[in-house]
């Protein structure tokens, strides 16, 4: 069966699943089964389509009717196929997870509605990455945004949900406007809205025009991807959304923006100017660094994950920027390498971020709070969840040989190659980016160490955490799939990278597949520069571990292990004596206070004598810089202007007639 029919089947599954689920809304159990069953099946079909395209070449599905904007069609080439696979993988796992997760919505919120929106959301993402016409793309893009918006405000009765949803909607709309203008500028050059006509159209453009298209797309797609300073909607929307949705949004939806950036820059514009790459690199560095720094001090686990998404998008864009720089200097092999690294990190981030969000969801499901400071000790109460979350943490902290490690290693390698760049300035800029990437990685490790340590280890810090118990099996299965993939995608990356090479070679114009992989080894560049094999590292680590275990047990004989209280300096062990999350991140907070603008308040009341404190309170908050200095002033300004203008509606008919009178006289005089 060829992939066109498969595509029909996919659409059919999701688009019949959606209304059916909505119809069954007041039978939550059944409608949940229907909805997520449909999406799971649809995503399986999506996987097949992707694989089929990667093996047997592209597919195209024309619309039965023509539109004023030219022909509409769904066309899937290598790049689209790769993203379809990523989207479908995650969606499949999340659908299974959702079966269990939505249980705590029964009777509270319309589960059927969520299910149908979920399907629409999935299909719209698939269509976004397979649209072949700018307008069709825009329609699908906004459908994706809208469906995700409705999913974000699903828990509409929670405080602040609707507001953050609205902010998300507005931000994404602004982004879409920028994208649209970019497309129309391309149209005015190529004379058609079809993507196929955009290829090489930029060659005829003036430098100014081409660069403004570049900038418009960077802003537009960047808003969706969450680059700083357009990132503010992420930490608002992701926590507000139900966890299964936030995992989809954060792991996959933002990637569609990356997809378009790659397609637009490498496909349509054809990277000519080196400074484009430099700009992308700079933006990426800022996003990565600030993103991880905000993530580190955040104690709302889902907000923290959202900020970490900003960081990872930054890392992906770093690789993309490096690729663009190489491409602009005609170093095609290296460009291919960097692009492959970017795609690899897209894959890894999709896997572990959705896993982590699902883990956070499970914690929420079991302990009813997102606040780390109220959690703790879950490792014993929900062992499987904690194990899977831990795998996610390991791979996002780039612990070898997991998937996060492989992609970061590749990015480092592509940066190390920067000495091939002829231009000295750019050559010196890239080591700075490398340093940024290094510190980002280390801070990310710290952040997730905190997240795992405070949430799952030691003693619970609240009643809910005390009473928490393991989540339903379906949720565990959903997470299990992804945690397995996190390991496999790392260890078996030597099988994945050639696929990435097939995807990138048409974009960059050269294939490095034949020397990228030799046996189990990944050889990023020609010659002896460096090589690495996650699989062998994995083997080595396990065997050495076994060895160490054995030797330790043999040497010194069998010794018994006593369980006892933690040493407590004589004070009773309560949750208050544990190290708090804020305490953990405090050193960073203080050392980088010029970034955080922290506001600390220490209040202590003492009634007997100044030495006996009856009550002590310490609050430490950081200033929301971007909201305060970027968004709020803008809104205030617009409102002020609007108020000034709206005095013209005085209510007195004489004034109204006066306007007409004046306009008449002005026009008569001016146009005489």
């Amino acid at each position, binding site marked *: 069966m060829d992939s066109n029919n498969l595509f029909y089947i996919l659409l059919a599954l999701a688009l019949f699943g959606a209304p059916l689920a909505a119809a069954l809304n007041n039978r939550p159990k059944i409608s949940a089964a229907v909805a997520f069953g449909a999406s799971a099946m649809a995503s399986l079909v999506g996987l097949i389509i992707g694989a089929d395209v990667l093996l047997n070449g592209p597919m195209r599905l024309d619309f039965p009717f023509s539109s004023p904007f030219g022909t509409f069609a769904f066309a899937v080439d290598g790049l689209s196929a790769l993203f379809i696979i990523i989207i479908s993988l995650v969606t499949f796992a999340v659908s299974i997870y959702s079966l269990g997760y939505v249980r705590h919505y029964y009777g509270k919120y319309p589960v059927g509605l969520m299910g149908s929106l979920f399907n629409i959301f999935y299909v719209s993402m698939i269509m976004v990455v397979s649209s072949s016409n700018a307008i069709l793309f825009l329609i699908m893009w906004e459908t994706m945004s809208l469906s995700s918006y409705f999913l974000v405000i699903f828990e509409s009765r929670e405080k602040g949900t609707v507001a953050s949803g609205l902010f998300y909607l507005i931000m994404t709309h602004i982004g879409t406007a920028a994208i649209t203008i970019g497309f129309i500028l391309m149209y005015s050059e190529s004379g058609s809205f079809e993507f196929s006509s955009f290829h090489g159209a930029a060659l005829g453009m003036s430098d100014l025009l081409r660069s403004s298209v570049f900038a418009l797309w960077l802003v537009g797609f960047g808003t969706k991807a969450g680059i700083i300073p357009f990132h503010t909607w992420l930490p608002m929307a992701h926590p507000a959304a139900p966890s299964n949705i936030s995992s989809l949004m954060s792991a996959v939806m933002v990637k569609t923006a990356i997809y378009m950036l790659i397609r637009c820059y490498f496909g349509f514009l054809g990277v000519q100017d080196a400074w484009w790459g430099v700009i992308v690199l700079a933006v990426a560095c800022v996003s990565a660094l600030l993103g991880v720094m905000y993530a580190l001090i955040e104690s709302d686990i889902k907000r923290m994950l959202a900020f970490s998404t900003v960081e990872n998008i930054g890392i992906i864009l770093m690789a993309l920027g490096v690729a663009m720089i190489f491409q602009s200097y005609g170093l095609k092999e290296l460009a291919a390498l960097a692009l492959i690294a970017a795609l690899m990190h897209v894959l890894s981030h999709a896997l572990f971020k959705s896993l982590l969000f699902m883990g956070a969801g499970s914690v929420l499901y079991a302990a009813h709070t997102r606040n780390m400071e109220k959690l703790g000790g879950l490792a014993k109460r929900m062992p499987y969840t904690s194990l899977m979350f831990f795998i996610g943490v390991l791979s996002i902290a780039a612990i070898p040989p997991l998937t996060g490690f492989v992609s970061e290693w590749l990015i480092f390698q592509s940066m190390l190659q920067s000495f091939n760049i002829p231009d000295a300035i750019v050559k010196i800029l890239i080591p700075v980016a490398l340093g940024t990437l290094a510190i980002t990685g280390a801070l990310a490790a710290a952040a997730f160490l905190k997240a795992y340590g405070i949430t799952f280890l030691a003693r619970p810090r609240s009643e809910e955490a005390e009473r928490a118990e393991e989540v339903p099996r379906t949720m565990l299965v959903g997470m299990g799939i992804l945690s397995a993939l996190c390991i496999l995608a790392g260890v078996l990356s030597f099988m994945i990278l050639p696929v990435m090479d097939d995807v990138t070679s048409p974009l960059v114009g050269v294939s490095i597949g034949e020397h990228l992989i030799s046996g189990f080894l990944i050889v990023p560049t020609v010659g002896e520069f460096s090589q690495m094999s996650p699989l062998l590292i994995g083997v080595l680590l396990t065997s050495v571990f076994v060895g160490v275990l054995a030797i330790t047990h043999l040497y010194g004989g069998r010794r018994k292990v006593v369980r006892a209280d933690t040493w407590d300096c004589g004070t009773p062990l309560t949750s208050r004596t544990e190290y708090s999350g804020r305490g953990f991140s405090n050193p960073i907070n203080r050392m980088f206070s010029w970034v955080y603008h922290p506001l600390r308040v220490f209040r202590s009341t003492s009634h007997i004598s100044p030495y006996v404190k009856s009550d002590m309170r310490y609050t430490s908050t950081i200033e929301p810089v971007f909201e305060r200095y970027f968004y709020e002033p803008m809104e205030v300004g617009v409102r002020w202007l609007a108020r000034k203008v709206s005095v013209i509606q005085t209510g007195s008919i004489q004034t109204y*007639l006066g306007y*007409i009178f004046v306009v008449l006289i002005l026009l008569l005089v001016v146009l005489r």
Partner: protein
Amino acid sequence: MLNSLSLDAINTLAAIILLTDFMLVASSRMRSLTRIFAIQSLALGALAAVVAFETGAEHIYIVAVLSIVLKAVIIPRFINYATTKIQVKREVEPLVKIPGSLLICAAITLLAYFVTEPLMQQGTAITSNCLAISFASVLIGMFLMVSRRKAITEVIGLLVVENGVFLAAISTTYSMPMIVELGVFFDVLVGVIIMGLFAFRINRTFDSIDASILRGLKD
């Protein structure tokens, strides 16, 4: 070929119309407003008649008669009836004091001339030089509406504007096709009646038709 007598007649009538415009602005009594308006309409009708006589286009006679009957007789009576029915105070209550209004109207007249001057070069009609005056009375009518507080004065201002338009029609093209003319007259009549009705209803609800208290709707 053109009979100088009738040309004089046309110019005189046009001058009268302009004069009545100023008188309207100057007058401070409702009664006198309607009266002056009647005179203006009369002059307009006469002018139309002269034009008809000159050009020998019969349908303009009808137009002339209609305008006299409607605007010089029926509508003023109707307005008077309305004003007495809903005891409107007899003062006009201008928002702009009368001397100021007069100065402004003078300025407007100059402006009208300035605007229409190129057209009058173009115009081939014998009456084309009335164009400036027609424009002036359109603008002055609007100015009346802007600067007077009462609802009734707005209706009168509107009618003055209509007169100006009508004069423009005659002075540029010896009036429009018959059917259109009739339609226009019909509309004017209906318009005035409907406004009168609304004036009654407003008066009933607000027990006043001072248009400047109608300010419930604003942003």
